[in-house]
């Protein structure tokens, strides 16, 4: 039962990330491969605050969300101003830079060994070290995120982002500020990633740089591609499938030394196959 709950909790945390990646990549059309880095910024921020500074979890997670918003906006402002390929390079650069910071700023992040002993909070009397209680918290967070996603998507903001995806020049000709739209999308995505990061640290009680590296960003893109873009369902189905994938792969006899690369290779295959044959994903719209 605990095992199943762990699966659900992780899927829910990754669903938060999938919603934000969906917003950036699927709705707005921005090729972002640095979402795992921002997830990491959120995780480290929240975890450092709750461990070393004894900040209550609620405040820490809000702080993490705020930091991620700022990071995303600071990155987006210069790089989204110019053509899309500048942003691709920047996005890769941010991802590598953050991984370098996570690995090398040993005093703050614990370096390659990571941070341990991250506490799970007590929320309204629920002791969330228990998965049965944590799942209530993560489900609540996901539900709130889904409401926000729905409201954003079906508002003038959502329409603006969809228009930006289809034709930026026409959006400018219609009198709208394309850069502001994209930066706002990046800000919202940052908030989701920050919350996901805080939950992740609290759930696993241990984080290291290797959940937040380039491979992590590729995993996120895979979730969104497999689940499908521009629908909420896609951001839930994708993580459910991909978090469960390692269990499926366990049925094939793969030596543990290559398990990691084989898993990552599967993500790559999924990306290529879905782009070639099913760009709409399982339950999404056509990318």
């Amino acid at each position, binding site marked *: 039962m605990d095992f199943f709950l762990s699966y659900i909790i992780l899927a829910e945390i990754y669903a938060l990330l999938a919603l934000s990646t969906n917003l950036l990549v699927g709705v707005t059309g921005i090729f972002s491969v640095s979402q795992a880095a921002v997830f990491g910024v959120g995780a480290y921020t929240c975890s450092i605050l709750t461990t070393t500074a004894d900040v209550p979890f609620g405040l820490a997670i809000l702080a993490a969300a705020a930091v991620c918003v700022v990071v995303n906006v600071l990155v987006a402002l*210069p790089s989204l101003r110019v053509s899309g390929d500048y942003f691709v390079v920047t996005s890769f650069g941010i991802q590598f830079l953050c991984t370098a910071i996570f690995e090398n700023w040993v005093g703050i992040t614990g370096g390659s060994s990571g941070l341990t002993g991250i506490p799970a909070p007590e929320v309204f009397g629920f002791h969330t070290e228990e998965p049965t209680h944590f799942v209530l918290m993560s489900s609540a967070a996901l539900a709130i995120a889904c409401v926000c996603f729905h409201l954003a998507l079906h508002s003038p903001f959502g329409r603006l982002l969809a228009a930006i995806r289809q034709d930026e020049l026409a959006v400018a000709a219609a009198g709208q500020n394309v850069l502001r739209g994209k930066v706002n999308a990046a800000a919202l995505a940052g908030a989701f990633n920050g919350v996901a990061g805080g939950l992740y640290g609290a759930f696993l009680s241990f984080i290291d740089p290797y959940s937040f590296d380039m491979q992590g960003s590729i995993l996120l893109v*895979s979730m969104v591609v497999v689940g499908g873009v521009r629908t909420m369902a896609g951001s839930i189905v994708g993580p459910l499938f991909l978090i469960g994938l390692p269990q499926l792969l366990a049925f094939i006899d793969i030596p543990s030394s290559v398990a990691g690369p084989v898993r990552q290779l599967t993500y790559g295959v999924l990306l290529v196959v879905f782009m070639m044959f099913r760009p709409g994903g399982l339950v999404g719209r056509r990318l």
Partner: protein
Amino acid sequence: MLFLRLLIDGIVNGCVLGTIALSFTLIYSTTRLFHVAHAGVFTLGAYLVWTFLGLGLPGPVAVVLGALCCMALGAATQQFLYTPLIERRASPLVVMIASLGLLAIIENAIAAIYTPNILLFPPWWGKDIVQLGSVPITYAQLLSLAMGLLAYVFLMGLARFTLLGKRIRAVASNAFLAEIRQLDPKRVTIWVYAIGSLLVCLPSSLIAAEFGLRPYSGLLYLLDASIAMIASGLGSFTGAFFLSILLAVLQNLSLMVLPGQWSIGVTFFLFVFLMLFRPYGLFAHAR
């Protein structure tokens, strides 16, 4: 003295980086697609050369074979992945995601087959040293300089004096018109991928022999190279090549003040600086 050592090392590294940048510029300026899988072709080249060396083939033969394999992979990518997608009117975002997937496949296949550890193969050209004033230069460094200059001369010659070069320039400026004038842009583009992929095997082998290479290293090198390419104004071989040298020199000189792992940060900050102050914006090339 240290400065001279770092300067010369920088120029040498710049020639290696410049060759990567030249190969990528050839592809990008013709297709305007950010072929991230190029990083995979780059890495695969070195590993294939190592395999051929392990089979007992002499050094130069191994390199030639490796380069031919890279050429085939690059051409196949264009023919079997990108072209079908483009014919289905896939957006550039879809193509880039497919390219990312291919990169993940190549890198992880290498990691699974060859182990994720660092690859370092003994250079067959020996450890001879030449004295340039007070500074010793290894044979490998001389090779790097030669490779860079040869690659530059080759591509400039290709662009200016050959029929293929003229066709490449025509396709690069307007693929649609090139189609009408029966220049067969598809075939031209396959040649572009072939030549670019062939070329990138050379710096890859040198890096593997001099510094070592990991399955996932390719992307970082490609990032550096693409920054040089973008900073030089896209589509200029001369700019990309000499800016690579400048970038490598600056990175190397920064070692006088920064620890090694942060030298990527130097390039990154230069890039951000560039994006903030480059005069043209989003719509400068609209017609």
